[in-house]
């Protein structure tokens, strides 16, 4: 039995409070900004770029996706040919641009909060899928880890409601299609308005969260009931097997739709048919990583002696394998769009490569190359500090992955990982730790009634 230590309680609450304060300050600050402040800021930026750059800025706004240097050359050309036109529209353009930047700066705290909220929610949903698979496959190696998984999935309900709540509260700060003004002038979004509708979006979200939470509730209930049941009575395990199989079917549909709704629709013109899988790979690897980290933590406290090297080895194998799987999907999505080069599809990657070069390519190093090289050797998968090191890098990399999915559509090139982003991470990290370790303290750490528990305890590779 694990008791939620006072120190950990204080740490998680402190993280939460620091996060709230930091995020709140940046929220208030960004809303205090006026159009004049932004104009001053832009003028300062322009003076850094040199005198000519003001034309560059203006044209980047118009063409939006051209390379900065190209745009400058382009601007100079347009400027010389349509001299009079450009001058008469210049002041209008400057105003429109400043307003655009102001919107992006207003969006930033919302987007930062949303990215962090989704990241921590995605961990618990990924663990829920992993847990369901263990039951449906009647896996013999993993039952010693079930209580850790059940504790992490306790966050699905609050985390899911928070993400949906932020999405609805932020509205057009994150989802541009929630702004009727934008939809009125956009035929592509109008064509999708049957799906992209705020009420329907909220109802869908609630159905998904309800389904996941119901599975989680009953599965946990049967798992605890199995502990108290007679040795020859496996009825609770069988029920768990059945609902897990049903849940996995429900999950793969709803997870896909959730990823279109909650993430892909931030770029409402763009779509990718494997986006659901891509988000799934991200949540799966993050979830498995967190199972490994929490298990190592509890083992180091001497509370999970029944977890041996082979269990850690298998978790690390999953971290390695799903990292490769994530890369496979990331590349499949990228290569087809890069090859076909259709303007409405390729803008998605053009913005990311131009404005988000470091996070976009850095993510490949964090999520693929680093775990690939570190976890390749069989022996290293059994060394706890190696798993922890690789795990922290993987989690950071998948935060950046979510960041790259949301930020380009909301703040454009005005991104930075600064106070709002870090505070939002701390806020949800505190909440996540508090809820997960609270749930851990509610039941014994060994699911002793599971019919596979002996096999799991003796598991060796």
């Amino acid at each position, binding site marked *: 039995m694990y008791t939620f230590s006072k120190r950990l309680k204080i740490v998680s609450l402190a993280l939460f409070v620091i996060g709230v304060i930091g995020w709140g300050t940046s929220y208030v600050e960004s809303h205090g900004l006026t159009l004049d402040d932004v104009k001053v800021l832009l003028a300062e930026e322009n003076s850094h770029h040199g005198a000519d750059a003001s034309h560059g800025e203006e044209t980047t706004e118009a063409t939006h996706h051209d390379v900065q240097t190209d745009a400058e050359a382009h601007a100079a050309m347009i400027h010389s040919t349509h001299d009079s036109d450009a001058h008469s529209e210049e002041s209008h353009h400057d105003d429109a641009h400043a307003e655009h930047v102001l919107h992006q700066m207003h969006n930033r705290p919302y987007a930062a909060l949303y990215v962090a909220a989704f990241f921590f929610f995605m961990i618990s949903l990924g663990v829920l899928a992993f847990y369901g698979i263990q039951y449906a496959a009647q896996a013999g190696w993993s039952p010693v880890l079930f209580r850790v998984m059940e504790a992490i999935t306790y966050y699905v309900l609050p985390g899911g409601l928070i993400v949906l709540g932020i999405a609805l509260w932020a509205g057009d700060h994150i989802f541009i299609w929630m702004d009727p003004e934008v939809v009125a002038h956009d035929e592509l979004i109008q064509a999708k308005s049957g799906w992209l509708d705020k009420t329907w979006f909220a109802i869908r979200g609630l159905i998904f969260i309800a389904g996941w939470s119901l599975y989680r509730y009953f599965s946990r209930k049967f798992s605890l009931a199995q502990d108290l049941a007679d040795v020859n009575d496996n009825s609770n395990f069988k029920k768990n097997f059945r609902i897990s199989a049903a849940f996995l079917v429900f999950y793969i549909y709803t997870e896909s739709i959730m990823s279109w709704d909650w993430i892909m629709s931030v770029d409402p013109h763009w779509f990718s048919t494997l986006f659901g899988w891509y988000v799934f790979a991200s949540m799966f690897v993050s979830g498995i990583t967190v199972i490994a980290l929490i298990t190592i933590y509890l083992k180091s406290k001497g509370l999970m002696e029944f977890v041996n090297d082979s269990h850690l080895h298998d978790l690390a194998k999953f971290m390695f394998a799903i990292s490769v799987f994530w890369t496979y999907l990331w*590349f499949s999505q990228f290569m087809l769009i890069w090859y076909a*080069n259709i303007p409405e599809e390729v803008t998605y990657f053009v913005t990311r490569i131009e404005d988000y070069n470091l996070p976009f390519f850095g993510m490949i190093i964090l999520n693929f190359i680093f775990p690939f090289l570190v976890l390749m050797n069989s022996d290293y998968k059994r060394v706890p500090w190696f798993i922890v090191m690789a795990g922290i890098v993987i989690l950071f990399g998948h935060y950046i992955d979510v960041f790259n999915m949301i930020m380009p559509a909301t703040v454009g090139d005005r991104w930075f990982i600064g106070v709002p982003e870090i505070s939002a991470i701390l806020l949800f990290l505190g909440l996540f730790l508090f809820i997960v370790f609270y749930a851990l303290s509610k039941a014994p750490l060994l699911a002793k009634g599971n019919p596979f528990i002996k096999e799991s305890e003796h598991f060796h590779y």
Partner: protein
Amino acid sequence: MGSSKVIHALYTDDDVLLAAVKAVKNEKHHIEEIFTPFPVHGLDKAMGLEPTRIAIAAFMYGCVGLIVATVMMNYIMIEDWPQNIGGKPSFSYIENMPAFVPIMFELTVFFAAHLMVITFYLRSRMWPFKNAENPDPRTTDDHFLMEIPVHDNEKELKALLTKSGAVEVHIVDKEAH
């Protein structure tokens, strides 16, 4: 080297064999070789064999495959007959790399897999036209055979092996390879 004496003990069950291996190792005898009809889980650990180094070889073969793919595609598609890939005629390997990644991946796997199998065969002293080293054809069916070199301790070994559950124990003069 001339001929040397070895003792052959045959077993009919993998669990009995595994227990016998542990008993023999406890008595500090060297086990030369074991012939089994199928892989026996945990036998390598019981015999005290060193872990395989084939993974290191596989990694190096994979690197070779990756380099071969890169050099080959660069020569074929960029230098020798420059191609306009995906309507983006940049004629640069790095800018066209997404198109080459599948080939780089496949050749990495191809080299690692094939060279690893060949290495395994050579390391196991198996090559075309080689006579089998198997001392008893029954080990390809339902018998397990343990081979222990004899150093004037025939009686002791015989007693130990019979006790450990061997169905047959005999001494053989073995030709050196």
